[in-house]
């Protein structure tokens, strides 16, 4: 059985990527998870400089989901390259570096720096973090903004460039098209949904940042729909995510149109989820006699089983 999939020129052993912001820099998990057995590790969003992020509380649980407003705390790209990348390289991880900037120049500089580093396999352009103003969301909510930042980064690096789209827009497919036209190698979606929770006893927001991003199983049906819409709009490989917690969920995203997936929130609940997902995918492939997993991508059958029997 062949579980490998191709994200542009990058072939990864299986479609399971640890989602950015949900797996630290990967090294935190190096002793408990075989990093080389993952399709890849998307490391926590990095700016050029270190950042301390938002004042806690930074997360709050919601029905079948959670809000986060971490505020992109991070060590900055230079310390990442010096302190984390060597271990990731040694552990043979496929590394997707998630980058954030305030200006196009910052994205371009991050991409240049990372292109020169040994052990970086792809750049995920975070233009969709909902809970900080400077995290590129201004690019991610504007079609020209998306186009401009993607094409600038595209010119600055030989690495695959993967803009990560926000779901907080009216027509996500138009952003997929903008990314494609600007030369992206793939797109990833969805980042979190802008949301909030209130402590009714104190009448204060539960998060110090007031708003945060909703992730987890709660959002899965919306994320699947968005992947499906993008699949029809572009030819680019899609990395789908949003609430994946079981092998069935992985398959659902792939059938909707994803080439690979990321798993975030569910890996908080079960850090050893990866082998369970792989086992479940293999069992499905056996049951359905699928030799090559990538054949599954975009195979949703929408020919109606039942015709409307009455004019509606």
């Amino acid at each position, binding site marked *: 059985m062949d579980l490998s999939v191709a994200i542009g020129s990058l072939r990864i052993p299986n479609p399971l990527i640890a989602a950015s*912001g*949900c*797996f*630290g820099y990967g090294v*935190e*998990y190096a*002793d*408990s998870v075989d990093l080389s057995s993952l399709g890849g590790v998307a490391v*926590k969003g990095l700016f050029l400089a270190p950042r*301390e*992020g938002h*004042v*806690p*509380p*930074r*997360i*709050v*649980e919601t*029905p*079948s*989901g*959670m809000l*986060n407003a*971490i505020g992109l*705390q991070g060590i900055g790209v230079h310390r990442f390259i010096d302190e984390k990348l060597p271990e990731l390289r040694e552990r043979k991880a496929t590394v997707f570096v998630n980058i954030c900037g305030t200006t196009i120049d910052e994205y371009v500089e991050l991409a240049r720096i990372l292109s020169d580093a040994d052990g970086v396999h792809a750049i995920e352009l975070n233009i969709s973090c909902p809970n900080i103003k400077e995290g590129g969301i201004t690019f991610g909510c504007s079609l020209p903004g998306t186009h401009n930042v993607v094409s600038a980064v595209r010119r600055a690096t030989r690495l695959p460039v993967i803009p990560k789209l926000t779901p907080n827009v009216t027509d996500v497919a138009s952003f997929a098209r903008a990314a494609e036209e600007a030369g992206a190698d793939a797109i990833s979606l969805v980042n979190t949904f802008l949301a909030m929770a209130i402590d009714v006893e104190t009448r204060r927001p539960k998060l*110090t940042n007031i708003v945060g991003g909703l992730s*987890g*199983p709660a959002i899965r049906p919306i994320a699947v729909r968005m992947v499906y819409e993008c699949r029809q709009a572009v030819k680019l490989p899609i990395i789908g995510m949003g609430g994946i*917690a079981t092998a069935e969920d992985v398959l659902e995203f792939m059938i909707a149109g994803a080439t690979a997936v990321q798993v975030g*929130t569910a*890996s*908080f*609940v*079960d*850090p*050893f989820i990866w082998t369970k997902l792989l086992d479940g995918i293999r069992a499905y492939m056996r049951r359905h006699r699928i030799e090559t997993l990538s054949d599954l991508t975009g195979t949703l059958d929408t020919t109606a089983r039942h015709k409307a029997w009455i004019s509606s």
Partner: protein
Amino acid sequence: MPVDVDAAVISNTRLSDDYSVLALAAPAIATHALPGQFVMLKTSRGRDPLLRRPFSIFQILRHDDGSPRGVTVFNKRIGKGTSLLYDVEAGARLECLGPLGRPFDPVDPPVLAWMVAGGVGLAPFVTLAEALIARGTAVTLFYGARRAADLHCAPIFERLGVSIAVSTEDGSRGTPGLITAPLSTALSAIPASQPLRLYVCGPTPMMRAVAGVAASHGRPCDVSLEQVMGCGLGGCYSCVVPARDAGGVPHHTRSCIDGPVFDATRIVWEALVH
């Protein structure tokens, strides 16, 4: 390296309307647990509540032959997950991930060990007391609660040979008021030449107060902080506390892997949210 055990509930002993001791069959965790470490417990089998909850390892359970059998947690009901755990019955199964976090560092004689607990902050001190006593270190527990009915498990410590000083806010047992008062008195009574270390766990304002008392007496002090935790493994950055690094510069550091136990002087108390 933490392990995830689908642990059978051996028993769930209700101590009061809001406290219970939950015993879990998890030998693989019991084998490696150190004092001050914690587990992440899934409080139900569905997706609501979604996230695990952190709990100090309260006791190590052993079979008659001394081999590790599991752990207990000292559960205080304060919300959805802890209520589900309070209601759990023997025979149910709970996913239990651990042991996690940076443990306490037990001192050796002649250093004295003074443990200071507020409410459910008692949880990490049974295993710490055992480790200290095994080394021959003399142990005292200062235990503060709102009222006498909230002072649980003193007999466990008595059996171990721990000296106990108690305070209650309503004066219904021991010294009336906060535990910092009897602690300060006792610290003043000890000669500076007698080495001593404080270990503290409880509500944040109490830990901050005790850290202040310790500093004013020039005593080393370890605190076990309680932050909301999404993953317990360093993945999510939800659990950060403001701490000074070696150079004295303050940073947000993850209390799940850099803690939960910290040297009190590292914490920027005025910035710690509770």
